[in-house]
């Protein structure tokens, strides 16, 4: 499912999985730098995001909502070359 893509940055879409993110309010601005409110609660939809990835020898990009229909384990860890 991950699609090969140019190098980019991870960013939350601003919406939850399976729903279109809220429409932009006009001008194109850089991704907001102000604090982001966590939007995570069990029983509620996960926040959607796109992120660059390394997968089986290739650089690619994934979006969480591409995995709708499958079970997903999303793991965060402090850094490469540490134990997970």
């Amino acid at each position, binding site marked *: 499912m991950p699609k090969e893509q140019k190098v980019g940055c991870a960013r939350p879409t601003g919406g939850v999985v399976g729903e279109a993110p809220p429409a932009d309010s006009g001008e194109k601005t850089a991704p907001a730098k102000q604090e982001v409110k966590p939007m995570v609660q069990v029983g509620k939809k996960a926040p959607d995001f796109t992120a660059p990835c*390394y997968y089986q020898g290739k650089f690619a990009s*994934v979006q969480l909502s591409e995995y709708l229909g499958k*079970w997903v384990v999303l793991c*965060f860890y402090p850094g490469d070359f540490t134990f997970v």
Partner: protein
Amino acid sequence: MSVDSMFVHKMWVDHELSKMVTSGTVPFPMLSDGGGTVGQVFGVYDADGGVDVRGRFIIDPDGVIQGYEVLTPPVGRNVAESLRQIAAFQLVRESKGTQATPSGWRPGKKVLTPGEGLVGNVWKEWKVGEAFD
């Protein structure tokens, strides 16, 4: 997913992980969260350290978060417990919510059927020792 770039992910696979797994590569996408923006919305970004802490989220086929666990960096996870939880959530989903897994449940062990009959009668169906075996 960590704040490392995908280039560092590649180096980690090439120089270390490939020596730890028999397949020689990692079977899932290794995501990069530069700046921790995704970690922030999931509530696992430590701005002081500039890293995502150990957060593990189980997300069902509808995109709903069924469970999560967040640990500070020095303590690693228990993968077997994550697999047990996934099996439990899958069982509940398959039963369309008619079954529930009590404390200590593992695949193959007894499940509970919530309803009027179970109220006040869990002690007959489930023993405290089962939470620990």
